């Protein structure tokens, strides 16, 4: 499987405090990969580094065969990375329809109709303002918004955090559907059981380094690993 994304020893710091100490991993085309680890181990910083929001100090990030670590965030996004950020961050002052279409890239495979197929709940709420949506609806909207940019790789930071069980199930269902359609996905979440079912490969971060990488079967077979790094 060719790689869609490769991190090669990236180091990132906020001012004087270094967070990442050489993170290396690869995500294959059409693969669902995860970033695991306790809070503060560098998962979000890794995502921010990929997106160009926190520039790296050392290392390299290759996406779709090209180096992207020197690009500003908007160019990274244009290259085909779609982020569903932690805390959703939808535009509260735009309607649901506008949230989806404002940043959409026309001409690609994703259309408003297709997003509505994936999340039928929006059908009746297209004209509602973003600010009135529930947390679950906001998360679906954030995913839809990212998909409308026709990403080659979809990145979700805390895909189901703080959502009700029913809504979580809806999100996992949608992600499984995306996977079946060949969408490459990099996902951060704390729900190991769901991730074991959905994902192909896993990367465990510990203190700014990748402590372990392997398949779902490998991870499921090592409860001590889960205990040590994930606190399960």
């Amino acid at each position, binding site marked *: 499987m060719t790689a869609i994304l490769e991190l090669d020893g990236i180091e990132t710091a906020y001012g004087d405090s270094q967070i990442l100490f050489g993170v290396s991993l690869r995500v294959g085309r059409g693969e669902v990969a995860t970033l695991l680890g306790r809070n503060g181990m560098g998962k979000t910083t890794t995502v921010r580094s990929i*997106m160009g929001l926190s520039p790296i100090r050392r290392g390299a990030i290759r996406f779709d065969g090209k180096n992207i670590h020197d690009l500003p965030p908007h160019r990274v996004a244009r290259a085909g990375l779609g982020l569903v950020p932690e805390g959703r961050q939808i*535009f*509260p002052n735009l309607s649901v329809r506008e949230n989806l279409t404002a940043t959409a890239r026309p001409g690609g495979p994703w259309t408003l109709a297709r997003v509505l197929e994936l999340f039928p709940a929006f059908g009746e709420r297209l004209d509602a303002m973003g600010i009135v949506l529930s947390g679950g609806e906001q998360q679906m909207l954030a995913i839809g918004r990212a998909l409308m940019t026709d990403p080659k790789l979809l990145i979700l930071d805390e895909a189901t955090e703080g959502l009700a069980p029913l809504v979580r199930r809806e999100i996992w269902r949608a992600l499984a559907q995306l996977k079946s359609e060949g969408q490459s996905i990099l996902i951060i979440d704390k729900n190991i059981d769901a991730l074991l079912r959905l994902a192909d490969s896993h990367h465990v971060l510990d203190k700014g380094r990748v402590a372990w990488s392997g398949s779902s079967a490998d991870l499921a077979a090592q409860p001590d690993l889960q205990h040590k790094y994930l606190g399960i």
Partner: protein
Amino acid sequence: MGARFAAFAILALLAAVPAIAALLDQPFYLDIFGRAMVYAIAAISLNLILGYGGLISFGHAAFIGIGGYAVGILSVNGIDDVLLQWPAAIGAAGMFALLTGFVVLRTGGAHFIMITLAFAQMLFFLFTSLELYGGDDGLSIPHRGTLAGFKVLDSPVALYYLVFAVLAGALALSARLVESRFGMVLRGCKSNERRMRALGFSTFRYKLAAYVLSGALCGFAGALLALESEFVGPSVLHWSRSGELIVMVVMGGMGTVFGPLFGALAYLMLGHFLGDLTKHWHVILGPVLILIVLYARGGLAGLFARLGKRP
């Protein structure tokens, strides 16, 4: 839809002002409402960046001044067809917005307020010291120019309807713009600019384009103001004018299409009629403004919208 209904009612009234003025034999109505429409255009231009983009420009009067002086300076130099004056006014204001935009748009929040104010003050003192064109005293425009060679602008009614047409055009432009992709990106920037960048947009370019468009439209308003009053002086770009424009936009409803129209009319009419009662009319305006900001969310446009929803 209450706000839209109110707006069309007001536009219909404005269209009828010349007839009413003639009927009541009160020709100065044309002056008052003509000037109110010009300020409405300026407020619409400010609303584009303040209301939709969240950029609080405290120097928008500079663009009125540039537009006004462009007309004044061309006029005293013998170039008096408005089809030459207007593009010059719009172009000069747009160019000033472009050049200063590169600087001011790198800042945000309080810094943006201060730096737009600073640029406007620089222009204020520049025109104050420009002895060749009146300096402190301002510049009288010898005569209103021609429109494509025709001397129609000497008729106050013709000039009034010309301003009316520009106002209608500015409203249409504003309405179309905010619905467009450009407008959506601008509004998105207001609530979360970093997110907009992470979704693939160079937000600086969008903000700069909005700033230039806003400045150019405000310059047009300045040109019309100079034409109406046959005079332009440094007072039109005094910082308090920039403040008044902000008050108009806030009163009328930031980030609404018709808010600036409501706000400009309400502010100037309040000033006019309260001014007849007492010259300290700001004492009354202040509390009114506080009440509107506190209780009428979305300004007058929000108020009209809520009234429209009641059965």
